[in-house]
Structure formats: C-alpha cells, structure tokens
C-alpha cells in the first residue's frame, strides 16, 4: 500500500516540476479554445477544470451580462499563447453546447425575472456556489469519476435519464403554468397520458421478451466462456498428463508420480479457494509436501488441523519438515509418507512419518548434516524442538514443535 502511494506522489511531483514555471503566467491557449481561450487559461492558472470556469462565465452572463464583461476584460488583458504553424480551429461543438446552455438559462432568467438582478438571482447564485463547493470538496478520484460519468454514458445512464425526464416535465409544466395555459391543456395532457399508457401496455410483453432474450444470450455467452476455460485447462493439464502416462507406461513409479501430481493440481483447481500459497502454515505445508512428492515420486499424505500466519520460527519449522520429508522419501523405502500439522493456541506441531526400514539414530555419523543440522539443529536454533523416533524395521517419525509467537 505504502509503495503505491509513494509512487503516486512521485508521479505528481514530476508532473509539477515538468511544468515550464512554478507559477505560470495567465495566457490564452489556442489549442482547445472555445471562444478565445480565456476560460481555459484561467482554469490552468487556478488548476481547475476549464468546464467549471466556462460554466461560471455562462452563468454570470445570464446575471446582468456580468460574465460577458468579465470575459471581455480578461480577453483584452491576457496575452495569447504563442503557437508555431497554423492555428488549430475552435471546438464548435462545445461552443454550440455552451450557447444552448446560455439560451436556456437566459430564457429561465427572463421568465422568472432572475436576470434583472432582482430577488430571483439568489437561487441561481446559491445553487452555483453550492455546486462549486461540492466540486472543490470532492477528492480528485471522485471528481475524475464525476467527469467520466458525465462523458462516458455507462454507469449513470439511469440516473441521468430520470433526472432528464424530470427536468423536461418540470419545464413543460412550468411553462404552461407561467403562460396560464395549464387549465386549458389539462384535457390534452390526460389524453396524451392515456395514449402513452396504451402504447406501453401493448409494447410491454414485446419489450419484456426482448429483455429476457438478451439475458438468456448473456448467460449463454458466459457459460460458453466458462466451458472454453475448462476445456483449455483440461487440455493443458489433464490431456497432457495422460499423454505422458501413455509414454511412460512401463515405468510404474513415474506413472504414479504423474497421476498424483495431476490429481493434486486438478483438486486445487476445482475446490481450493484462491489463496496465497505462502500466506499460511497449512498452505505452505501442502505446497512443500507437493514439491517433495513431485521430486521423489513418493506419495505424501498431508493432514492439517487449524491454521495460522507464517512467522520466522514457523518458516524454520517448514524447512525442517521439508528435510524430514526428503529423508523419508529418499532413504526409508516407504510406499507412503504421512505429514500431520496441527496448530494449537500456543504452538505448532508437525509430524512426518514413514513406514519404511528405519535406522538406529546413534549409528548416524556425526558429519551427516540431514538430521542433526537441518532438522534438530535448525529447530533448536529457532527455539523449537525436534524428536526423532525410529527403529530398524519400524519406520521413522519426526516430530517438530515450535511456539507460535517466535
């Protein structure tokens, strides 16, 4: 987490330092201008979105033409940005949009008398200030989302449709009420409502079936994708293993090894919740056992009871357990090895047991590193304990214990 935020900060710093000056002069950019680039320039200076300033200018223009005066003044006093070559054209689409917005506001202002600077100005002013405050309060990420939400028409489609419909209805009714025609239009409105309702009733089943069909197609597509994924997995792993088994049919040991490793992989894929293989003790024990099983071709049965986070001591325990598994697989000639790991409130115990030929512990030469150093020595260095029980002909069991809080 901290790394990510660090990187984020660094990126922002380089952005800032890459800017030509720490406090850039107010200029009117040519590229992307709508009228004369005043709003864009001011926005760059204030580190705001140009849209905010443009809206502010439009709004202020409605109020006694204040915005118009301000814009003209800034236009005169601000130098134009120097561009090499041909000047890029205006964004006529945006200009048209702001024009329409201005027209709408002007009409609204004219109807309510707000534009004459009277009492009606205040709602617009308060609303505008409120919107700006909201905009400023929002963190950059959320602002980004608002902006993309307004641009991409994905997630907010419903909200915008409803708000749009409400606005249109309020506008229409408001217009009728203002011009005193509401009473006359009532019969017409009722008639329209009835007709629209009728059409909806006729079209409803068709629309519903359309929606259902769409959903069916979507589920079908998801199903097909899943099937394709399963097919890909089976092909990569199971079929591959079956081919290998056929080619090694004479080598019983190899066939067993292949079958077991494939079984394990398939089981993991089918049932195991996605987990970090090294995050917890049980997962780590299973992983170690699987690796040694693959390396030596001897089945290792793992049973885990309880689970906990890995600590330094437990990593040492894991290394010792691995060494015990390697010893059992290499020297005991046991057909199967049992590994049992139990996590209790204060300590962790791991047993590695084989039913192989066993040995006499005292006969093991001093210089043999496997048991003395890698298992017993390692456990004692980390504050744990190891006990080896073995007898010729009676198999071997290695018991490893480690306190949890070390």
């Amino acid at each position, binding site marked *: 987490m901290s790394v990510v935020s660090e990187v984020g900060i660094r990126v922002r710093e380089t952005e800032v330092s890459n800017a030509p000056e720490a406090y850039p002069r107010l200029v009117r950019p040519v590229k992307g201008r709508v009228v004369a680039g005043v709003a864009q320039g001011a926005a760059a200076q204030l580190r705001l979105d140009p849209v905010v300033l443009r809206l502010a200018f439009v709004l202020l223009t409605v109020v006694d033409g204040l915005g118009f005066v301000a814009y003209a003044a800034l236009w005169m006093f601000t130098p134009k940005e120097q561009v090499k070559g041909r000047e890029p054209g205006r964004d006529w689409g945006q200009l048209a949009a702001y024009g329409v917005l201005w027209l709408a506001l002007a009409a609204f202002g004219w109807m309510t008398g707000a534009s004459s600077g009277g009492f009606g100005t205040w709602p617009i002013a308060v609303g505008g200030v409120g919107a700006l405050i909201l905009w400023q309060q929002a963190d950059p990420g959320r602002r980004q989302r608002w902006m993309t939400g307004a641009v991409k028409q994905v997630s907010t489609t419903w909200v915008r449709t409803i708000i749009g419909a409400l606005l249109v209805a309020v506008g229409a009714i408001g217009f009728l009420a203002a011009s005193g025609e509401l009473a006359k239009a009532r019969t017409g409105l009722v008639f329209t409502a009835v007709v629209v309702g009728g059409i909806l009733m006729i079209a409803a089943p068709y629309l519903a079936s359309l929606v259902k069909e769409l959903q069916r197609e979507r589920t079908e597509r998801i199903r097909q994708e899943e099937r394709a994924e399963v097919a890909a997995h089976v092909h990569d792993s199971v079929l591959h293993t079956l081919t290998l088994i056929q080619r090694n049919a004479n080598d019983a040991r190899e066939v067993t090894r292949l079958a077991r490793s494939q079984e394990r992989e398939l089981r993991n894929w089918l*049932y195991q919740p996605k987990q970090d293989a090294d995050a917890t003790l049980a997962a780590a024990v299973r992983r170690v056992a699987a690796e040694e099983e693959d390396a030596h071709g001897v089945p290792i049965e793992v049973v*885990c009871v*309880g689970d906990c986070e890995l600590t330094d001591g437990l990593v040492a325990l894991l290394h010792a357990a691995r060494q015990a598994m390697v010893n059992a697989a290499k020297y005991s000639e046991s057909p*199967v090895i*049992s590994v*049992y790991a139990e996590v209790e409130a204060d300590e962790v115990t791991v047993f590695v047991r084989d039913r192989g030929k066993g040995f006499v512990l005292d006969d093991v030469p001093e210089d043999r590193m496997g048991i003395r150093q890698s298992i017993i020595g390692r456990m004692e260095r980390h504050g744990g304990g190891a006990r080896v029980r073995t007898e010729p002909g009676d198999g071997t069991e290695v018991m490893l214990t480690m306190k949890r809080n070390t």
Partner: protein
Amino acid sequence: MKTVRVLIVDDHRLFRSGVRAELGPSIQVIGEADDVDSAVAAIADLQPDVVLLDVHMPGGGGQEVLKRVLGPGSQVRFLALSVSDAAEDVIGVIRGGARGYVTKTISGAELTDAINRVSDGDAVFSPRLAGFVLDAFASTEAPPIDPELDSLTQREREVLRLIARGYAYKEIAKELFISVKTVETHVSSVLRKLQLSNRHELSRWATARRLV
C-alpha cells in the same frame, strides 16, 4: 470366518469392477448399483451387510441414499467411498449415517479391512477424516450446548491425532498402551458424537472450508 455380503454403489462401471477384483476372500459382492434409485431398490431387495457408497452420483448422491434407506430398525451399514476430499462431503456423509469414509485411492487390502470393521459395527476413519473432526471440534469457540456430545475427551483427541498422523489402530493401541478394542470404542464414540451433535457449527465449518 464369516463372509461379509457387500453391495457396491457407484456410477463408474470401471471402478465397480476394479473394487470387485481387489477385495479379499472374506468379502462377497452380492450386487452393484449405479444410481440412487437402483441402490435403494437393491438394498431393500438384497439386504447386504455393508454398502460401499459413492458420495457423488446422479440423483442426489450418497447422502440421498442414506436419507432414504436409514431409519429405525435398519441393519444395513454404510462405508462411504469417494474421490472427493471436500470437508463438506466427508462431514455430510458421516452425519448422514455412514460409519466410515475412505478415499478411492485406498488399497484393496485396506478396503477389505475397512469393510470388515464396518460390518462389525466399528467406525473407519481415514487420516483426513480424523483431521477434519479435530479441526471441526476445535474451531468452535462457542460453549458446547451438550457437553457430552459437543466436545471430545482427551483420550478421543489423542486417538484421532494418531489416526491423522497415519497410525493404524494396532499401532495406536501400542502407542497408548490400550487394547485395539478400546481404540475402536473411542473411534465409535467420536463417530456417534459427530453424527448426533446438534451444534450447527459442524455443518457450517464444513461448508466454510470447502476442501483440503
């Protein structure tokens, strides 16, 4: 020595014939079934001593068979046999009434032994099942509702731990200085607790951890 009459219920024909070939002379396979309906019919018809029951089958699986067959006065004993090691399946089928659970990788000799044991009314625990039981009974912090049923005794815990470590009953008896019969008694008692304990944590635990 008496022979044990066994019915094999499994939807894989290859597996049924494999098991048939592997079982020792003390076992007599008296029939096979490949889905829930035919299994229920065959059990009513043949009255086997032991049913080898696959956990996953078309039509509801082994648990459905148990539900439809087991009732008061039922003499049939079930040994569940499955490729799945999912805790949900293992605990589910045991709580459904099976007297043991072994995986399909078990050798013929071990399976013969397990069938004989179930036929004698004992329980058969694989190392993994023992691990599940220890985990399930240990993982609940809520105080037991019925102390007799909802917790394991120290001795039962020791026995289960040794099973999980891969010890055979004979080895457990030697390790704990008790008779094999006593080991069997402990395991049966654990099975009874597992089946009768009302604590819903058991089922919830099994559902929560899908598989190991």
